[in-house]
């Protein structure tokens, strides 16, 4: 316990980094997700195919491979990225793919006869999307994005493998330092602490999301939209 308290500032720094990355990637994922999710519904088949390729690729490849790809590949393409930048970019692309699925699923969940009815009244396709489909789809989409935030926050730990100073990296640093300087191995306490920290953070987020879901009347939508089964692959 003393180990934790003695290194509290380090852990706090790591915590803020985690939160920062989580929020930035959530915003990016939302933007990318809405753009791609909408494109996945347009008429030209080749647009829909391109979106599907992007989504399947980013969701089929393990996230860690994805991040390594960005981290090692960016400099070779002339793009100097810090570890922080690489993680943000990698997570955003992945999050965007998931976001696209959320948006597409939400839009498709609106009953077909809604758009038919709107079409029969003479509304144009984009008007149908903006006034009829999107408002109704948001009810399920928004909580699902809140669920994505939890996944993104958990995924920030992968940053520790490329040098980002988030919570897990801080934990590792503390373990190494203490082992070298004091001779004892605090790995058990430290990693337990990190686990508990994430548990409290994510449980709180999940709880808030469930309450929000209930208010929107969209219970069950989040799980369905986050993709078929309920286990995320990172």
């Amino acid at each position, binding site marked *: 316990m003393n180990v934790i308290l003695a290194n509290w500032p380090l852990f706090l720094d790591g915590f803020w980094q985690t939160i920062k990355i989580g929020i930035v990637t959530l915003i990016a994922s939302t933007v990318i997700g809405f753009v791609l999710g909408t494109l996945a519904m347009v008429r030209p088949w080749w647009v829909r195919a391109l979106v599907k390729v992007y989504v399947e690729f980013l969701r089929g490849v393990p996230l860690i491979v994805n991040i390594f790809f960005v981290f090692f590949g960016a400099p070779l393409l002339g793009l100097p990225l810090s570890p922080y930048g690489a993680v943000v970019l990698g997570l955003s692309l992945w999050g965007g793919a998931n976001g696209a699925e959320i948006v597409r699923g939400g839009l498709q969940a609106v*009953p077909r*006869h*809604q758009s*038919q*009815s*709107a*079409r*029969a*009244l*003479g*509304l*144009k*396709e984009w*008007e149908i999307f903006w*006034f*009829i489909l999107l*408002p*109704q789809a948001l009810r399920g989409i928004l909580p699902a994005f809140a669920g994505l935030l939890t996944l993104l926050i958990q995924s920030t730990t992968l940053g520790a493998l490329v040098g980002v100073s988030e919570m897990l990296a801080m934990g590792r640093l503390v373990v190494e330092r203490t082992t070298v300087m004091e001779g004892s191995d605090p790995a058990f306490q430290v990693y337990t602490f990190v686990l508990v920290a994430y548990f409290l953070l994510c449980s709180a987020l999940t709880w808030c999301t469930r309450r929000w879901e209930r208010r929107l009347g969209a219970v069950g939508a989040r799980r369905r939209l986050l993709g078929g089964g309920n286990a995320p692959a990172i």
Partner: protein
Amino acid sequence: MPEPLISARGLNRHYGAVQALVDVDLDVHAGEVVSIIGPSGSGKSTLIRCLNGLEIPTSGTITIDGQPIGLRDHRAWTRIRPDVGMVFQDYTLFPHLTVLRNMTLAPVRRGRASRAEAEANAMELLAKVGLADKAHVHPAELSGGQQQRVAIVRALAMKPKVLLFDEPTSALDPETIRDVLEVMQQLAREGMTMVVVTHEIGFAGEVGSRLVFMERGRIVEEGPPRQLLERPASRRLADFLAHLIRH
């Protein structure tokens, strides 16, 4: 005889191996109330949905108000749809909008009226069907019959030249069916051109000016309702009516 408002010739609709419409010809003149009856799967719904482009026939021609419409010309259909109103079996009001907004959305977006004009017009129409007090309510709070009546005046808000009805009372309780049929009767009396796919033979017989009987994708008989119902010329129509009476 003046030009028909809607003219469909040689409509065929294939779904893979199944043919839902077989060489169907239909003319609808202004002021007529055409009722389409027939067993399930006879193609009645498919036919009426072809008349406003919600279904695209595999072949055939459709002319509305003298203008032929290219079957796959989506832009042309979007332009003409306000003139061809449609009321569906499951009313499909937009649940996230109030009744008033449901009615004013299309007229305002299509530039047919300003927001204020559209609202005034909508309130008038709602009053006609006795639902003026529900203008600011959401559809979920209305009964099935009330929702269907709103759906009808929502289509009327676009001031269409013809109204299509796809089994408008099939999803309603027997008590509320009467309310909706009354509204439709009033419209007919006011001279609205209507095409109604229905199971309500009573309505078809009393209010309709022409009856069309379809079976397995073809029009088997058509003519004045009284005549067809009392002295059906074809065996299949006679069987169909006998079947209905027994149930």
